[in-house]
Every structure is written in C-alpha cells, then in structure tokens.
C-alpha cells in the first residue's frame, strides 16, 4: 500500500535531513562563534532553478504526483555532489574530519535507499510522478585548491543539501498525511 511506503519514505527523509543538520553543526563547531564570518554563499544552489512551493498554501495545492516528482528531482540532483562531498571530506581541513567523513557516507547510503523507495513509489503513482527535472551539478570535480575555499565550498554545498533535504522531507510528509487514511492518528 502506498500509504505504508510513503510513511517509510518520510521516516528516511526525516533521518536524511537530521543527518545533514548534525553535519552542519559539526562543521560550524570549528568556526569560532565570536568572529564567525557569515559564510559567503559563492553562488546559488545548483537546484535553485527548480520551482518549488515556498509556503504552506502553495505546497498544499501541489498534486501528489508533482510533489513526488519534485522530491525525486531534488534527490537525484544530489547523487554527484554527495559523491564530491564524500571524496572531499577525506582531506577536509577540519578537526572533526573523520566524523564528517562517516556521516557523509551514511548520508549517501540513506539517500540511495530513499531514492530506491521513491523510484518504486513513482511506479505506483502514475506517469506524472515519474517525471524528473534534470538539475546537473556544474561545480566541477573538486572544491578548490586552498584550505579556506575548500571549507567554504564544502560548507556551502552542505547548506544547499540541508535545505533540499528539508524540502524533500516536507513534501513526503505532506504526501504521507494525504495518504494516511490508514493511520490518521499520525497526522
């Protein structure tokens, strides 16, 4: 039943976003709060061209298949950049480098598992749900040569993922509650 699969998907997306938040906090822990320079945002997130709802009213008007399509498009847009984050994490000039590396690895695993689930879900929700917008990552294969730009770009990429994983989680939770006729108590 779709409701069941959606509940599982939103549990995974919840975990995915929670992981990205933990990672951001781990990264922030290295920057002294007093003199913290507001991290420059070198560019816009590579997924920002995707039109997504920006408040509750808009989100609740989006159809089920479009919500799933948005979630899949965002998730698939992160396959390459997560790999880049993973390879860059090994040489990240940060005291928490190994913890960050492990968490990125778990992020990739959870992301892959969620992707598998959304593929199966889209198969059960009709052709519109299978449509995916291509959002290629054009940030190159490394995060820069010097230490500071590598940290800044790593932090920026992670902040983009954190936001997109929150979008994915929100869309799946709205979908899960729409389908939650079997488990109204949870919504």
């Amino acid at each position: 039943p779709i409701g069941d699969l959606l509940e599982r998907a939103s549990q995974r997306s919840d975990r995915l976003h929670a992981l990205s938040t933990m990672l951001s906090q781990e990264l922030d822990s290295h920057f002294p709060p007093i003199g913290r320079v507001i991290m420059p945002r070198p560019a816009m997130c590579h997924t920002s061209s995707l039109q997504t709802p920006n408040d509750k009213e808009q989100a609740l008007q989006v159809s089920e298949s479009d919500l799933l399509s948005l979630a899949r498009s965002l998730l698939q847009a992160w396959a390459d950049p997560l790999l880049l984050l993973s390879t860059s994490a090994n040489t990240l000039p940060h005291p928490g480098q190994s913890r960050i590396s492990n968490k990125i690895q778990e992020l990739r695993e959870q992301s892959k598992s969620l992707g598998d689930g959304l593929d199966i879900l889209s198969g059960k929700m009709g052709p519109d749900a299978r449509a995916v917008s291509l959002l290629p990552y054009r940030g190159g294969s490394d995060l820069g040569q010097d230490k500071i730009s590598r940290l800044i770009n790593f932090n920026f990429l992670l902040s983009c993922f954190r936001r997109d994983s929150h979008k994915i989680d929100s869309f799946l939770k709205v979908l899960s509650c729409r389908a939650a006729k079997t488990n109204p108590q949870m919504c």
Partner: protein
Amino acid sequence: SLPGKPALTRCRSPEKETFTCWWEPGSDGGLPTTYALYYRKENSETVHECPDYRTAGKNSCFFNKNDTSIWVNYNITVVATNSLGSTFSDPVDVDVVYIVKPNPPEKVAVTVLEDKGWPFLRVSWEPPHKADTRSGWITLIYELRVKLEKEDEWEVHLAGQQKMFNIFSLRSGGTYLIQVRCKPDHGFWSEWSSTSYTEVPDYFQRERSV
C-alpha cells in the same frame, strides 16, 4: 552620542507559516532613539522594512503568512537612529524552517485507571491548534513529565508522535502534576503546557494492611 549598537537576539516561528524577530536595543546615547528593522531576501536586492512592529510587542517585528516564505534566507538588520545618526546591528541570516518553536500542546487530560489492581495515569493531549499537523505541514513529537506535588524531581517520558501516554510508575497516593511539551521534527522544544493535577487514591496503604 550616537545610539549604541542594537542586536537581533531571536527569531521564532510557531508553525512554519509566520515568524517574529526580537532585538535588544543598545544604549540610547542620551537622545531619543528610534528603531527600525530591514530585511532582504536571498537572491533579491530589494530591501524591505518590517511589515508589523506592533503585533508581537516591543522591540519586535512580526511577519504574517504573506510576508513569510520558507527555504529562502532573510538577511535581517536592525537600525537605531537618533538626532546624531544611525547605528546598524550585525546582519543575521534566517531561514524560517530552522527557527520553528511550536506553542505548547493543548487540552491535556489525565485519568486514573487500574491495571491488575494497580493505578496508572492515562494522559492525552492535542497539538497546539495553530500547528497544522493534519496536512503534514508540521510533524510533532511529544514529551511529558510527571511528579508528586511534594517532590522536586520530574520524571520525563518521550511519547514519540502519539497523543496519549500511560504512566505506570506511580509511587503512592497523592496529587500528581503533569505537563506536556512538543517539538517539530526539525526545530525547538515548546514551553511546557500548563500543569494538570490529578488525585491518585492511596492504593498502597490498603495493599500493606492485608
């Protein structure tokens, strides 16, 4: 002198639909000083002024549903101005999805029930009415705490997403205090709800006298 530097101290959203920011004025430099809040949304150069200085009280700015977008950074600055000039606060970046702190749960009800002769408390509650949990826009988990009136130590229980919890570990007869709070999936714990009181009869004396 010029006004002291103000500081944006906190921004919170109770339901991911509106939000409020508060600031701390600096020293007023001995002259009448006024405060204004300006914000700019990510990828836009337009600077807007606070839409509503009143709804949330002194030194605050309230953003209603139309003024609130999520997954967009608000770059916010407070400006203190007196006759000698203006002083700007440090700018703060805020994305509403990361500042959600709901209101406490409501309609907390407690009943004393019995299981194999032993009393236990069934506590039930409702989510704060402003938080739209039904559509899934906000997902809440709950925590409750209980203690005997005469004691200081609260006993805390995580209730997950459910809106009902059984407390088996009652110590003895007396007046029990119960409070509940909630947290969105990704956000801050609410304040504790107002206290619910319930009387538990003295089962224990009866047990020992047999």
